[in-house]
């Protein structure tokens, strides 16, 4: 079992939904985002998504875009983020660390170089917002030999067949269910509809399902995740740490 599987196993035993926390690395500064990571783990975050900024974040809402802008102005690169991970990994040997970014950032770095270095640093998985099922082979071909996994996303527009196909071959990962049509930080569905939809997704796949987009607090997350395995808080955390 990898760290992701162990984490969901532990949460199941403890009878709680896994809390996945997202941070844009480098916003407001790299040091502050690393301190924020420590704070969040202290507050009970089970999995960390480390956002690496991209100049054209088409899937992100205003809050995360502003953070990405700030991080880019600070000159923070994928190499800078990877360089900080060994220390984070030593302090938190059991917390899954997920690199969260857009494909060009990784592609430009060199796919194989990225996979090898990320694995050596102690990264567990990669989530690429703009890399759907049809295009992910190229990245998986380098992640797998390095011992890394990929976090697939499904959206409100994703049909049942495609949900199954997205999870296939990623038994050591978890499924990120985007809960709204739109960008990060938005919320349009009523929680009751959401809970039912998440239950339906959960029934289709054998891997843990976490819900994301528009969840602001762990309490809200736990309610939304009543019929799945976890929740993601992103924009609300980014807003909080950008203010500090």
């Amino acid at each position, binding site marked *: 079992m990898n760290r992701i599987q162990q984490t969901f196993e532990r949460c199941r035993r403890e009878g709680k939904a896994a809390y996945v926390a997202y941070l844009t690395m480098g916003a407001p500064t790299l040091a502050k985002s690393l301190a924020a990571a420590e704070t969040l783990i202290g507050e009970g975050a089970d999995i960390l998504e480390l956002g690496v900024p991209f100049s054209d974040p088409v899937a992100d809402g205003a809050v995360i875009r502003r953070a990405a802008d700030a991080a880019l102005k600070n000159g923070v690169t994928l190499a800078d983020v990877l360089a900080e991970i060994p220390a984070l990994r030593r302090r938190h040997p059991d917390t899954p660390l997920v690199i969260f970014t857009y494909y060009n950032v990784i*592609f430009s770095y060199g796919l194989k170089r990225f996979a090898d270095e990320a694995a050596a640093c102690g990264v567990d998985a990669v989530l690429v917002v703009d890399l759907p099922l049809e295009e992910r082979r190229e990245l998986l071909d380098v992640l797998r030999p390095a011992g890394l996994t990929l976090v697939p996303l499904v959206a409100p527009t994703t049909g049942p067949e495609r949900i199954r196909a997205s999870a296939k071959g990623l038994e050591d990962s978890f499924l990120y269910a985007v809960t709204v049509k739109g960008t990060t930080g938005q919320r349009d569905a009523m929680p009751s509809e959401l809970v039912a939809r998440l239950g339906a997704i959960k029934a289709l796949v054998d891997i843990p399902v976490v819900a994301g987009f528009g969840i602001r607090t762990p309490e809200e997350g736990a309610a939304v995740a009543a019929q799945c395995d976890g929740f993601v808080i992103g924009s609300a955390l980014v807003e909080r740490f950008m203010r500090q």
Partner: protein
Amino acid sequence: MKTHYGIYGGQYVAETLMTPLHELERAYADAKRDPAFAAEFKDILRHYVGRETPITFARRLSEHLGGARILLKREDLNHTGAHKVNNTVGQALLARRMGKRRLIAETGAGMHGVATATVAALFGLECEIYMGALDVERQAPNVERMKMLGAKVHAVEEGSATLKDAMNEAIRDWTANCDDTFYVIGTVAGPHPYPAMVRDFQSVIGREARRQCLREYGRLPDQAIACVGGGSNAMGLFAGFMRDMSVRLVGVEAGGRGLATGEHAASINGGRVGVLHGAKTYLLQTPSGQVIDTYSVSAGLDYPGVGPEHAYLADTKRAEYTVVDDAEAIAAFDALCRYEGIIPALESSHAVAEAIRRAPLLPQDAILLVNLSGRGDKDMHSVMEYRRRTAAEAK
């Protein structure tokens, strides 16, 4: 339908857009098989857009250069003043067929925005246009035209506040509103099926030009030359000659202040392979994969990527891609004004400049076919501004 061109193209988008893209692909494949769709497209191009557009022999310019004959494919004579409308008519027909009630589009110089607002009015659809705040300033008359036609124009303040940022915002709008909204992409970029679909709608340029050349000059051109930003007018021209291996296909990228300065928009000549706006293609980017702000005197070429099929044609050498800088484009603009009485768009002036370079090196029976993709009325302000700036720098 082919989703990639060699390693280029594909569908690098957020999962939310995959189902809408699949629906679009099916609807387009279905429309392509429907003779009624083709007939209506052709009818609108003829009676509304004003096709076919002629080819004009640039006699005085050719004689002045003393070499090959330069022929101009007159896309500037289309309704709305550029080739963009060929594509927006096609996509609006498709939107109506799919039951969408709202069109959105990105625009740089504003020509695609105007062409989209135009067909939205023609078909009675709602229309919202995303335009970089900098371009809203540079191209104020086109903003007024869009509003006049009933479109809502959003000035995008983010990033470099130009075309790529407008496209980011249009993609976000589509992600949130894909149920009732059709995204009209203006060039052969973006995720599949857009590059193929936009090429197909624009291929009327090349098919007409090929026929006209054979009919009026009894032969094919030696070279077909077009400017390349995203590359829709070039793909439209090239499509007509793709199987004519004797015809050299020449794309002209915007050199801005010169390749060496880094201030340009020449993605093929100055970029490396990357992923932006849903496609893998040549991209102007930093060593760490951040997209670079581009520069060109012509707003319509000011885009850091290029259509994926162009990337493929460049690698396979079926087409060649050259660079023309601001100064050469302006000189070609002046030449076409003075020798032919035609005010070309600054975008098209890049293609004219390449023909001016090549014509003197070729015999008089050679033919250079240039796509005059748009007219220059919109560029008065940019040209005057350019002259003011260069005069000031010369002092």
